[in-house]
């Protein structure tokens, strides 16, 4: 599993990678390990807009359902369709199996409280 360079992570375990095409959002390997076998993912409709910290979807393991929160606010431009039928992919590689792509409203401001991946790792371990 390759850790993408430059990712930032929220306190609620969502990672975000900002590049020229927008923001790609996923869940950290640590969070997925805590969840265990993922059996269901519910993702938002393309075109919906969420602000930073808002619930954008649900992830369910065998045991429980958890909500996922926007690390930055913006409009949903793409969802990872392959996760609808194969949610277990998330347990295999948490970075290549991203959840949503977002056109961020104000990435600079929204991302100011996010952690760099190494600092996040130190915090959860």
């Amino acid at each position: 599993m390759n850790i993408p360079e430059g990712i930032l992570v929220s306190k609620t375990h969502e990672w975000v990678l900002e590049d020229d095409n927008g923001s790609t959002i996923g869940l950290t390997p640590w969070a997925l390990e805590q969840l265990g076998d993922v059996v269901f993912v519910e993702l938002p409709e393309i075109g919906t807009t969420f602000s930073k910290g808002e619930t954008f979807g649900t992830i369910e393991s065998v045991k429980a359902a958890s909500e996922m929160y926007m690390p930055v606010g913006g409009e949903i431009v793409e969802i990872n369709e392959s996760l609808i039928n194969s949610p277990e992919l998330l347990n295999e590689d948490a970075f290549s199996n991203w959840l949503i792509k977002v056109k961020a409203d104000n990435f600079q401001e929204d991302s100011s409280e996010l952690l760099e991946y190494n600092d996040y790792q130190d915090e959860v371990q």
Partner: protein
Amino acid sequence: MVVKEEIEAKKTILYDEHIKLGAKMVPFGGWLMPVQYEGIIKEHNASRNSAGLFDVSHMGEIFIKGIDATDFLNSITPADISALKPASAVYTQLPNETGGVVDDLIIYNSRGIIENIDYLIVINASRIKEDVEFMQNKAKKFDVEVINKSDDFAMVALQGPKAKYVIEKIGVNLDLQPSFFTFKNAKLNDIPCLLTRTGYTGEDGFEIILDNKNAKKLWTDILSYKDEFNIHPAGLGARDTLRLEAGLPLYGHELNENTTPIESSLGNFVPENKTAQYSAKDFILGQKTGKIPLRRKLLPFIMQDRQIAREGYEVYIEGKLCGKVTSGAPSITLGKNIGFCMIEFSSLEDNLVSILNNSKENIGMDIQIMVRNKLYNAKITKKPFVKKNYEK
């Protein structure tokens, strides 16, 4: 997503083994227990197809001793204890004065098996305090002692179609193994234990009760056959999905102090021909024979799409809120989402109640479950969800 913090709880004697095996530990019934090792799906499938090994040392053990032991137990449970032979076991409940359930339990007639002890009772970890208090209070009218031995014993469950071959390897030949719902004294690799043919998975298998000091050796001895029999250590996560598929109730979910065994759909465990009196017998039997109406009923359901129903979700029939999900999960064996719900009859019209009350007519009936503010279809079915695989 938010990850819950762990809370301080008691450790079983096998705690270090779980950590070594990479278990994720969670608090359950006052104990820190393994919820999973490699993953619930793997552990679930191993228990269905080969063998799962569970630490269930959190369960409580009660000894009953005295000349009134049989009469005493007969007076506190719907089961006919006078018909329970030595070395046999029965699943039953502990009803309170209004027919609600204090706990569900397995009673073992231990005469001739545990020295000077008439009965062994295995109870839920979360109910030890309530059960002991309840029983000791009821015991005042009898010449009987209720002794809480929960801290003295470890308990390990080996469940699945390969379990009997593992037990054969470590000391008890197939033809000498206890049959379904019986038990015996045994030596497993020289470790003295009670070998019981019971479980909570719907599979053939054993629950092994032994002194704490021997538990680690038995656990590692069984796991030394891991590769030969595909034994997986299995946690509470798999235990829950297995028992749900088998249609077995979990106290605090399908059973509680305000609901009778009949309302919790356990009528099969309430004999009508028992002569002895017990708490709320007339009420419970009245419900079983249809003379007293049920106030609510536990019903199994299958979701009709991919949404998973979870405990506490609201249940609707014909647009009316009428109950809650008591347990819900993906069925790993069926590949569908299943659960139990408690339907409150007071919120429904009489014609619907009469259909729900009829175990033939209610099958296939449509209900809706509220998942994140949207209603999704489910159908009433019958239990078990997955056929039981007991060796009888």
